[in-house]
């Protein structure tokens, strides 16, 4: 579902102007089929060059790993998002600075007039290695998180400092999973990132029954200036992962080509055998 709001008819169109803050818009949609099993909610961005070299470099992994010295003195790669008002930025760099900060909420419009909010789980969306090894908060087990980030300032574009990303301390600071997901830069300019999980409650009810839904968006993230697009994707998955027909199509295509080629070569080989036997004599 595209909610960028470039279409004037879109409810999010009003959010394109920077004056409206905060801007909340609502998009209605209908699910034709019910979603069984776990459902994954993604946000997708296009035309967003997360793979630009200067962008990819603009981070400090030491800092993100909780190194206290790097916290106060971030790497030069982070320029120009290294220091702000004489204080080091935590987390520094262009990637962190541009973190996706729309809030998406999903509601099921039931029979009654009052909509049911769909519970969205925010943990378990990042790689285990990232969450537990690569990203760490600055040391100090008993000290409150705010104290551990003392002496740093928030990235320029951010509203809240890093230690206030989530009330749960296990998901705040550098180990906030939304943050971790964002920091794993995409390979291509059009990409999607996992936003929330919708877990199935029990076997009786489908996770998302067919019906009308609306998506509540707190629209903070500007993409219009560079012609970007924002989308929200709901998806289920199989053992092979998500729906990507590419490999299947490619395999079928290559398989048939190989088969054809095989037949052609066989025919040629058969013909050639005969001629080569006569040719051998003339050598």
């Amino acid at each position, binding site marked *: 579902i595209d909610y960028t709001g470039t279409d004037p008819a879109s409810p999010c169109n009003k959010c394109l102007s920077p004056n409206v803050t905060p801007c909340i818009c609502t998009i209605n949609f209908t699910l034709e089929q019910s979603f069984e099993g776990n459902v*994954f909610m*993604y946000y*997708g961005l296009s035309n*967003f*060059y*997360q*793979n*630009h*070299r*200067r*962008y*990819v470099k*603009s981070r400090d*992994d*030491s800092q993100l*790993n909780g190194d206290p010295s790097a916290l106060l003195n971030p*790497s030069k790669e982070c320029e*120009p998002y290294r220091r702000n008002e004489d204080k080091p930025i935590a987390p520094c760099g*262009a990637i962190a*600075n*541009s973190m996706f900060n729309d809030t998406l909420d999903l509601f099921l419009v039931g029979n009654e007039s009052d909509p049911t909010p769909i519970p969205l789980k925010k943990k378990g*969306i*990042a*790689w285990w290695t*990232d969450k537990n*090894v*690569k990203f760490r908060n600055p040391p100090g087990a008993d000290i409150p998180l705010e104290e551990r980030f003392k002496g740093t300032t928030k990235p320029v574009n951010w509203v809240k400092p890093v230690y206030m990303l989530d009330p749960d301390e296990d998901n705040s600071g550098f180990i906030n999973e939304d943050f971790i997901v964002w920091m794993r*830069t*995409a*390979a*291509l*300019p*059009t*990409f*999607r*990132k*996992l936003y929330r*999980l919708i877990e199935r409650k029990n076997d009786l009810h489908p996770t998302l029954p067919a019906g009308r839904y609306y998506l509540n968006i707190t629209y903070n993230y500007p993409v219009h*200036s*560079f*012609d970007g697009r924002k989308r929200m994707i709901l*998806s289920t*998955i199989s*053992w*092979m*992962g*998500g729906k*990507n027909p*590419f*490999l299947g199509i*490619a*395999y079928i295509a*290559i398989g048939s*080509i190989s088969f054809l*080629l095989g037949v052609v*070569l066989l025919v*040629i*080989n058969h013909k050639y055998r005969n001629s080569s036997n006569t040719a*051998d004599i003339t*050598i």
Partner: protein
Amino acid sequence: IFLFLGSMCFVLAVGHCIWENKKGYYFQDFLPWKEYVSSSAVSAVLIFWSYFIILNTVVPISLYVSVEIIRLGNSFYINWDRRMFYELKNTPARACTTTLNEELGQVKYVFSDKTGTLTQNIMIFNKCSINGKFYGVVYDKNGQRVEVSENQFQTFSHLTYVLNSVKLLFVLAYVFQKTEKVDFSYNKLADPKFSFYDKTLVEAVKRGDRWVHLFFLSLSLCHTVIPEEKVEGELTYQAQSPDEGALVTAARNFGFVFRSRTSETVMVVEMGETRIYQLLAILDFNNDFASDGLRTLMVAYRELDNAFFQDWSSKHSEACLSSENRGDKISVVYEEIEKDLMLLGATAIDDKLQDGVPGTIITLNKAKIKIWVLTGDKQETAVNIAYACNIFEDEMDGMFIVEGKDDETVRRELRSAREKMKPESLLESDPVNSYLTTNPRMPFKIPEEMPNGNYGLIINGYSLAHALEGNLELELLRTACMCKGVICCRMTPLQKAQVVELVKRYKKAVTLAIGDGANDVSMIKGIFWGFFAAAHIGVGISGQEGMQAMLNSDYAFSQFRYLQRLLLVHGRWSYNRMCKFLSYFFYKNFAFTLVHFWYAFYSGFSAQTVYDTWFITFYNLVYTSLPVLGLSLFDQDVNETWSLRFPELYEPGQRNLYFNKKEFVKCLMHGIYSSLVLFFIPMGTVYNSVRSDGKEISDYQSFSVIVQTSLLCVVTMQIALETTYWTMISHIFTWGSLGFYFCILFFLYSDGLCLMFPNIFQFLGVARNTLNLPQMWLSIVLSVVLCMLPVIGYQFLKPLFWPVSVDKIIDRIHHCMRHPLPHPIRTKLKHASSRRSAYAFSHKQGFGALITSGKTMRAKMPKKNSFPFKK
């Protein structure tokens, strides 16, 4: 390549410029430009250089290192080759340079010296005729000549004396006094190595036949040999020319032992009696004995009275001292004394061909290598040797002799030769002629011209001097190159160099010069009067004439027959390996680098690399270096036996078929194709796809790992396809490198290392997270299949649609290997190589009877040999 690199960078820089203008400018909210970047153009210039750095792997620096290693390895193969080790002299082949190995596989022209190179330059006293009686042939009881079997021919040979126009060698010795008797039993001082089969001669000596005695006396006296007697009874002779050595040794064995000399006397043990002769004068021999298969020498004597000698002696010294026309005067004086001689007899010395020379030459000819003999010898000698070693064959369609003494004659002779071989080449419409008339001064390459048969060309030194001048040299070259064999005789060292240079300049073919003596140094290598004339490859034969040629050569061994092994086996392998190596190396670097190029279109032309920096570092250094080195050190498309058996396999090297511009473009295309596959298959795989637990895999680091793993798999499969000779080592190298890659991958992406240096090793956990994805493996398999399909198809179709003779031969070899039948060609070659006799006519039997029947030693020439000898 640099141009290619530059243009790629340029395209990307322009792309970047446009991108920054259109998108990057608006993207500054998230990614501001650096403060010093004022506009997209400035940024584009910076990007140009960034891409220059990233894409510079298309110009592989490690190529040079690897090439050197391969060359070194192949040189060692030559040094270690046991079949090029000459046991008798304990000399292995020696590669003095490492840079020329692959050129050995491309040799088109071989310039060979004769004496010491084709022949052994060891003279053996073979037979003699004394006073009209013939010695050296074995008769059975009935007086019939024994028809000896093939291998006895080697020592006996036939009797093909052509004693016409034998200039007499005469050395003056005068019996002066006679002194003590020493009790030496007969033959005590004989050289044990000497073998002579005819007992009648020994009997004649024992009988005390006066003529025989005089004959051997003259032989033992008249020479310039210096004896060395280190231990009593063990004599060794230091002879200026091997001929003399052979004669003196013969005399010694028949009881006329030359023992020592002072400046004025010669001591000879004559049938047990020691006599001292006074040496009055030495008349240098003017090196003009005509020869045939055997070098022959007439021995004559004359008794002089004292008065005549005194008179002559003064004339002689006068002549020697005269300042002008000394040579002429001396020869007049010589003439005076060299008349009224009594003919004693004639000797025949056999300058044996080296083992296996004719076979080698046949093989080389089959490999389309042209052999030119450049020799200082006389024409007759040279021609006979040429026949003997199959440079000329009996079945040749014609033989041209160029012996004109001025420009016009030479030109006429050359032209008439060409008219016979290929009449149309003299016409104005001939492409070469028309080219010559239009741009006469341009350096150019003369194309191959096919004559209408097998021809031989003989040209002598005088004519060559004219032919090498200015406008005639092209005539010479075109004529000579049409001939199957070329003999240049009576050449000075400078002329040898000039001829080599001529061919090198106009034919643009790889030339090889082989020789053993100091006079060949000029053509092997060197600067001769400021005239640089090295052949591409110089081969020295460590023979009788010293080390000079060897020291100046690129390769040295001790027998001519090793040349075929050097060229057809080592040269061919080196060339094939080098070509395979080059094309594979370029291919792998293109496939590696061009992925960046495609990625640029998706990363805003920002010089973002596709791979991890560590992968870029290790790719050429670790992951792919060993397999390709293994390939180019150990690969053999066919083994040595087959490549000697089918010399035709050598041809692609001469025409440089395996690595030229076309092949390079092919590698380039192949590389581009592979990189396309390698980029777009993983891209399609990761695009918008997620793992089974819903987490996305389209992040940059996973993408890198997928691409680099596919790349390595593809490249490894490719090398496995190219390897034709699988050994344990190649298995270890090829699959080991791939396994090693995964080890390193896990190591580099492991927790510990990444936590120690988080900013250097950023790919923490990627290996673990990515390598267990089914999508990844499917995409790798797909990439490999897609990359291999066209290659396999091409390799399969190529011999069908564009068959080269080599393919047929290789096909045949495989056929033969499956059905190990005795091969017809094999027996043929065997026969050729076993015919080691020095005589071209040796297969004409029953010839000896003709000679022995008549008293004269003038033998009738066989018809096929009826070309006019210079009288």
